[in-house]
Structure formats: structure tokens, C-alpha cells
């Protein structure tokens, strides 16, 4: 039971982190006409954050088993 | 030929008193001051009766008693446990190990003498 509560709180933390990384002024730091590996920085940033959020959720949920 | 009694006790004064007491009754008496010496003397001298203290250095009285009872050559030796350990459990243990009598310290001298006499009387 306490384990489940911990998992929920960790997921909540992921949600808040995601809000911060995607919907705060932080994201506009990457919204510049710069290319990394030939790919626009903002595009690279968004997909990276996205992948990390998914990985974090998978780890948190996976750790419950 | 007078009967031989061995006293095994690490308390010097007690040994002296019992020695005196039994000599007066006409027994041949010798003294050992610890368990190891006691067992050796029992094997060498084949006493008719042993007065055995329990709390002794090296080998305690129980161990000596057990060793004697396991040796078929020493079958005739009578053993009287003589000890300050007065608990019933100790007494039971002593008798279970094959002691013939158990006398608690401090003892009445007359009782000791009569007990020894009673044990040595019926011998052939």
C-alpha cells in the first residue's frame, strides 16, 4: 500500500517536471534557430524530454513489481 | 586389613577434618586436592570408598564419578558425594551418575561417619 502511494507520488513528480520542461520559460531557451547534428535544437529538445519522461514513468511503474 | 577411604576435596580444612574423623574410626585415609589427582589415586590405590567434592579445579566431582563408573575394574568403589551444592537437581545428577550417597555440606560428623560405616559394612 505504501509502495503504491510512493509510486503515485513519483508519477506526480514526473508530471510536474514535464510541466516545467515543456510549458515554462525553460522551453523557450531551446527555441532558437540552432542546429545540433543537423536537426533543429527545439525539435531535438522536445523529443529528448518526451523520451526521458516516458522512460521515467516506465522505470517508476516497473520498479513497483 | 582396614578399609581404605580416599578424600577428594580442594578445601584443605575440610579435608583435614574428615581425615581426622575417619582415621579415628579406624579407616585408612588418603587425601587428593583436585579431580585429576583424585581419579589417578582411585585407579592406583583402589580405595573402598571415595568422598568426592563437586566444585574442584581441573576435573569436577561429576566427571570423576562418571569416569569411575565407566571403568568395570573400579566397580567395587563406593562413592559418596560431599558437596556444598545443595540443590535437589545436583543431588539427582550425582545419584544418576552412580554415586552411592550424597551428603550436603555442612554435615553432622556423626551422620557422615554412620553413612560411611553403613556403606562399608556389608562388604565381604
Amino acid at each position: 500500500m505504501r509502495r503504491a502511494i510512493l509510486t503515485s507520488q513519483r508519477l506526480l513528480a514526473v508530471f510536474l517536471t514535464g510541466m516545467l520542461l515543456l510549458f515554462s520559460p525553460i522551453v523557450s531557451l531551446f527555441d532558437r534557430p540552432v542546429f545540433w547534428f543537423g536537426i533543429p535544437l527545439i525539435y531535438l529538445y522536445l523529443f529528448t524530454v518526451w523520451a526521458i519522461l516516458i522512460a521515467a514513468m516506465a522505470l517508476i511503474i516497473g520498479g513497483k513489481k | 586389613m582396614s578399609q581404605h577411604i580416599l578424600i577428594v576435596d580442594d578445601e584443605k580444612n575440610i579435608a583435614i577434618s574428615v581425615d581426622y574423623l575417619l582415621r579415628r574410626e579406624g579407616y585408612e585415609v588418603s587425601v587428593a586436592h583436585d579431580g585429576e589427582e583424585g581419579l589417578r589415586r582411585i585407579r592406583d590405590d583402589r580405595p573402598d570408598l571415595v568422598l568426592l567434592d563437586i566444585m574442584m579445579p581441573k576435573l569436577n566431582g561429576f566427571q570423576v564419578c562418571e569416569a569411575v563408573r565407566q571403568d568395570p575394574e573400579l566397580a567395587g568403589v563406593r562413592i559418596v558425594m560431599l558437596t556444598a551444592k545443595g540443590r535437589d537437581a545436583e543431588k539427582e545428577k550425582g545419584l544418576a551418575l552412580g554415586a552411592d550417597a550424597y551428603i550436603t555440606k555442612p554435615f553432622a560428623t556423626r551422620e557422615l561417619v554412620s553413612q560411611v560405616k553403613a556403606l562399608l559394612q556389608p562388604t565381604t
Partner: protein
Amino acid sequence: MLGGPLIVVTSFLYLGLLFAIAYWADRRADQGRSVIAHPTVYALSLAVYCTAWTYYGSVGRAVQSGIGFLPIYLGPTLGAALWVFLLLKMIRVSKSQRITSIADFISSRHGKSHLLGGLVTVIAVVGVVPYIALQLKAVSNSFTILMHYPDITMPGSATALPIWQDTALYVALLLALFTILFGTRHLDASERHEGLVAAIAFESIVKLVALTAVGLFVTFGLYGGFADIMQQAQEAGLLQSMMNATSVSDQNWFTFSFLAAMAVILLPRQFQVAVVENSSERHISRAVWLFPLYLLLINIFVLPIALAGQLAFPDGRVDADTFVLTLPIAHGQELLAMFSYLGGLSAATGMVIVETIALSTMVCNDLVMPVLLRHWRTRSVPADLTAVLLRVRRGAIFGILLLGYTYFHVAGEAYALVSIGLISFAAVAQFAPTMIGGLYWRGGTQAGALAGLGAGFTVWLYTLLLPSFAKSGWLPMAFLESGPFGIHLLAPQALFGLEGMNEISHTLFWSLTANIGAYLMVSLLRPPNAEETAQASLFVDAMKYDRPAIGLWRGNAEVAELKRLASRFLGRDKVDTAFAEFSRNRGTGYNPAQPADAETVHFAETLLTGAIGSASARVMVASVAQEEPLGLEEVMGILDEASRIRAYSKELEQKSRELEAATAELREANTRLQELDQLKDDFMSSVTHELRTPLTSIRAFSEMLLDDPRIKLDDRMRFLGIIVGETERLTRLVNQVLDLARIESGRGEWTTGEVDLAELIRQSIETTGQLFRDKGAEVETRIPEGDFRVSADRDRLLQVMLNLLSNAVKFVPSGNGRIAVTLSGGETDFLVSVADNGPGIAAGQQELIFEKFQRGDGDNLANPMGTGLGLPISRQIIEHFGGHLWVENQPGKGAIFSFRMPKGSSTLSASETGPSDEPAYSDRG
């Protein structure tokens, strides 16, 4: 060569495959070997979220707005992190109440109202039917484009063709047939469709694989990877303008994400797969990460395809929404084009089938059933209601698809269809306050929900749907620009003068403000009534109750009557099975003629809810039961009691846990006491033994002297000497036992003062001088000059010194004994040692001799006067003053007893380490 017949045949083969999968999954479910009871299947079924709007439209939006296509998928990703709270609760509530649609969810929460369910249904139909139209258009367009292979022709306006030549009509009819086969083969009490879910999961795989195949072909077949496309696009000047089209600081960025996060659980089809079709709450865990992962994967190639499309068709004649299909065609990839078409078909059909089933359930239960119920009040009720229900559902499916087709036919290429995705999202977002709010807030009433939904929907109609009509040319643009009747304040997209927002954000702001505002304020006008309170408790407390609250019903009903009623809707066999299982779970048999209790009535009503919705079920049950309405007070009382019982049982648990802890503590304390008791027993036994030994000698010699007057004089003197000696030993023993007991229990009397160790040593040697002379031993003292003052009890330290000296005397050989007493000073303490040239102490004995009554071997022989307590007492004394006493062997021969005393030591420092804190008899040296 591709052509009409081949495409049609392939499409039918694909749909046939879908149906085969569904049929197979249904059969497996009937055999009890469900294929969808797997978390991955559940996550894949959620991907019905990705429609043709994603499959074709993402590329279109990327061309238009750069990264603007991403919020539709980022929002749900973040939202998924909250599913373990929100979705779990929605599923828990829906399962226990057998809720099968959003309309029923909202209606049931607010006191089971037909009116509310009807309103939700209307909003859903109006909001979602255009979205269905969009799918029809996508299928029809992709079919037309593929038919012209290898030419690339944009389909003309559908309205230009006669209806019977319109592909979309046949697509609509075909899908209606297909949906009916899927969705209404039988009327399941729980309204779950295993076969449907399996087919949808399969479709999700097809569309992902197809889009990825096109993406791989474009990125690595036509170009040399991501960077290559980007570089070429940049050289063509495409990338810069696309990347500039949308900024992450736009209102849209957040608004679209928010809308999408809501839509992913509130769209009727999403509610259907996420909640109604859910087969286990545990599946949520996998979906939380697997569904966002699916979204990420399906978007990876969107930007490359968008760029490649623009590079391939620079004149803008080819609609960006078709790039996924036209790029393979343009490069002569026949097979890939076909596969891409099938991917789009799967995306569209999946959406249409599930959405239509979900809507048909709502239309049947919340729009048609109330009418039928009213109708049956005056006329005879048909015997087989199952058939009636199925007919209604099938009719609803046809109706909805025809409505979708009609909208498509009328709207065509108009703005009103192209932008419908987000317009639909904004419509279903209106459900959020009553649905999510209702899950956590008890105060919402039926009137409040009606007002909120009504207000939000009206604002949505006025600010989003009507303007889209105007932009399509069906309403005068003046209405849009200067408001109705020229009233600027009422201009639909700048309501009350709010300008500078894009239309979606504008609508979302005003509609949710009106929605939430009305929901809250109207709800707060009056307290919830009994029914609303009871239902609110079932929803808000869903995670607390293991079983739905019972006892919220009072009246007369018979089990047989209830069964007969349920059988008419669900069929006799199904109802018999359900009731049998119900009574088995309760552990009670039931007599069909006996009156039903509240729990049974509740069960029957829930069973019916699965088939006809909660409000209709309530009406139907009321028709066979004489219900005595419960007052608000009574409902509150029952709920209070339930919560009191919960609190009480929690308290009991807490108490029993405390009790267990206390018991464990007591057991531990008892064990410790027993140990102490054992130690005390051992000590007493030792003391007794030590007392009896001298007593034995005394008694024996006394009796001998008394009995025998003839004993020689020198024997008499010797015996009397022994008696006196043994008496002294007894006295010493008694004193030391008392002394030790006092020290150990902390009641020892200490007079602490300044002690000069040098002086103390000299005095102790003087006192024991006679002993040394008797034994012919020499004493050597090595005391350097200096200050050797410590703070201690002088008499006690003297006692220690005397004990050590007399001990040493015991062991030195007679005649040539040598004893050395040394005093030295260290940094923090002084060291005193007493060395002798006796036999030394065996290593195994060195600690033993500090234990009570444990004498070294041979001790008694050498000194029958020892008590076995001298060294333990000495150690206690030294430790009391924070020092330490120990023994070691000299390298040559003999033993050294040493102790350290801290400089300026006091009892204060000792009280931490000293034995006085220790319980008596526990110290073992």
C-alpha cells in the same frame, strides 16, 4: 498495377481480417481465455486516439505550423502520469456502477438524471460527428488518390459528384455495417466488446507500422537520414519558416496540450476503450508509459515526411495532408503506397467504429430510452426488450454514420471540416468540470451540472462552431467580424472585447469559465438532495469502499420481480447466471419469492444500468418496487455511519498494532528479567556455596572437639586455629558480598576527595609489610618525583591496592618472592602496576579471574582464605572512577596487575562508564 478493383478487394480483405480477429477474440473470450486481458493490448487499444487526423493530418499541420503538431501528443503524455489517480478512479467507479458511457457517468454522478444524460449525449454527438466526417473524408480521399496511381491527382470536391458516385457514402455504409457486426452482436451486461478491442489493438499496430514504413522510406530511401533531409530543407528555405511558424511561447502550445490531455480520456471513444473496455485496473500501469511511447514513435517521421513532401512538390499543388500517401506514389512505390493507404484506413476505421459504438450507447440509453419509457407508460411493453435495445443501437449506429456522411457531404473542403479535430477536443473538454470535478467534489448537483454543461456548450457553439460555419461561407462573415446585429461586444471570437487570443484558446477560456462558474454557483444554490448525496458518495469515496455503499434504498420489492425485469432487457440465461453469482459472492442463497433487500435491489439496478443506463435503470426498478424515498437526513445518517464504521475499524487496527508492539516489548522485558533472574540465581548459588564451605570446616571441627574430650592439646589448638581462620573468612565473605551488592546497585558510599597516589602506594605497602615478611618476599617501589593527585575515594583505592598486594604475596614463591610496585604518569592518566614473580596467569584465565567467585587454578591451595570477590570488587572500584584494571603476564615470569586512573578524575566522568548504572548481578567483569 493498382486500380479501383484491386484497392476495393484489398480494403475488403483488410476489413475481413479485422473481423476475423474480432471473431476469434470473441470466441476466445467465450471460452474464458481472453486475449485482451493483457496490459499491452490495453495500451494499444488506447492508441485509437491516433486517427486519420494523426495519420495524414500531422504532416499537414507540421507543414503549416512546424512543431505545432506536437502538443496533441505531449499533452496526453503528461496527462498519463496522472492516470494512476484519475483513470483508476474513473474505472473503479464505472465498474462498480456498471457505467458504460460518459453520459451515464455524468448523469449517474449527479443523481441519475435523464435530462443530464441527454444533454451530454447531444454535446458529444454535435462535437464528435464532424470528427467522424473527417475520417470518412480521409478514407474517401485516400481511395481516390490511390486509384489514380501512378498519377497524383487531388480529389475534387465531393459535392460536385452525385451522391451515389461518392466513395464516402459507401465507406460510411460499409463502416456502419461493420460497426453493427462488431458492436451489437449481443447486448452484454457489462457492455464490453473483447473482439472489438482486439481488432482495435491490431489496427494500432498496422497504422504505426505503415507510417513508420513510409517514414523510413522517405528518410533513408529518398534521403540520407534525418540530418540530410533537414539540410536540404534548410537550403530550400523550408525549415526556417516552418520552425518559426509556431513558438513554444504561443498560447496554442499550452492550450492544445491541455485539450489533448483532456480529450484522451474524455472523447467518447477514449472513454470506451480506456474505461468501459478495461479488463483489469492493473493494465493502467503499463498504459501509463506504453501509450505515450506509441505516440512518440508515431510522430518520429512526421517532420521528415513533411519536409520531403514540400521538397518533392514545391508548387504547393499537392495537399500536405496527403504526403504520407503521395510520396510513395510519386516515387513509384506501388506496394508501399498500398500499405500506406491501409494504414490510413486502419486509423480511420478504428476511430469510426469505436466512436460510433460509444455514441450509439449514449443515444440509445440517454435519448431513446427516456422516450420509450414514457411511451410504455401508456402502452404495453414488448416482451423481448433485448431485441428492441439491439434495434435501437443499430439504428443509432446507422444514424450517426449517416449524420457524419451528411456533414462531410455538406462541408466538403470547408474550413468547418478541416479544423474539426481541435473543435471536437474543445467540445469534449466541456465534460471535464462535471466529470473530474464530480469525482472529487461532493457538492455538485444535477442543476449545477446541467447549468455548467449547458453554459460551456453554448459558449463553444457560439465562439467556435458558428464561426467555423461563417468561415465556410454558411453564415455572413459580418457576424464573425462585428458580432450579431453589429454588437461588437458579442463578436464570437472576441467575446466581450477579449482580443488577441487565437480562436481555440479564446473558446477554451470563455467556455470553461462559463462551465465551471455555472457548475459551482448553481450547485451551491442549494444543498445536494438525498439521491445526489448518495451518488456523490459512491463516486468520491470510490477508492475507500471495497463494495458500493448499500442500504441507501428502502422499500418493497421481490427478487422474482427484479429478475423478470432484468431478463426482459438482458435475456433469461444471463440474468440467472448473474444473480446466481451475486448470491454466491454474498454467501447467501435466495428465495425468488422473498422480498429483496437493499443490496439485491442495488444489484439489479446496476445490472440494468449496464444495458440501459443508470437513469433508465432507476426508472425501471422503481416500476417494480414500491420505493419509500429516503430523506436527505437519512442518507446522511447512513453515509455517516458507514464512514464511522470505517474510522472505527481503522482505529481498531491501529489499536491492535499498538497492542502487538506493547506485547513484544513486554516479552522482551520479560526475557531480560528472566536473564537477570538467572544471573541472580547463579550468584546466590555461588554465595551459598562459598558460605557453606567455611561453615563445613567450622561445624566439623567444633563437633569433633565437642564429642571427643580426649583430643590432644596441640590438635585442639590446631583445630581451634582453623575454626578462627574460617570464621574470619566467613566474615570477610559476608562483608565483600554486601560491599559488591552496594557498588553494583549504585548505592555504594563514595567520599570523593584528592588522593595522592604516591602516598597511597607507600601506605598500602606499609600496611601489608607483615605479610611480605612472613613469606620472605621483597617489595620494590618505583615512584618518580611529581604530582600524582587524582580525585577519588581514598579508602576504596587503598582497598584495591591492598587486594592487589595480598594477591601478589599469595603467588610469589616462599623465601625468594619479589614484588615491584610502579607508578608512572601518562598524558591523561596515571598507571599503577604490581608485578610479581609468581607462576603468572594462564591466558585463558586472565579475564576469568575478574568474575565473581572465579579463582585461578590452584588459588585455594595457595590461599584458602581467598573469597573470589577481591578482584571483581577492585575492578568495580577502579571503573567507578573512570579507570581500568587488568592483568597481563610478564615476559619472564609472573603476573602484572595494572590500573589506570584518569588525571583529576571524578565520579562525574565515571557515571557514564561506571558500573553504578548497571543493574546488579549483570556485570561479568
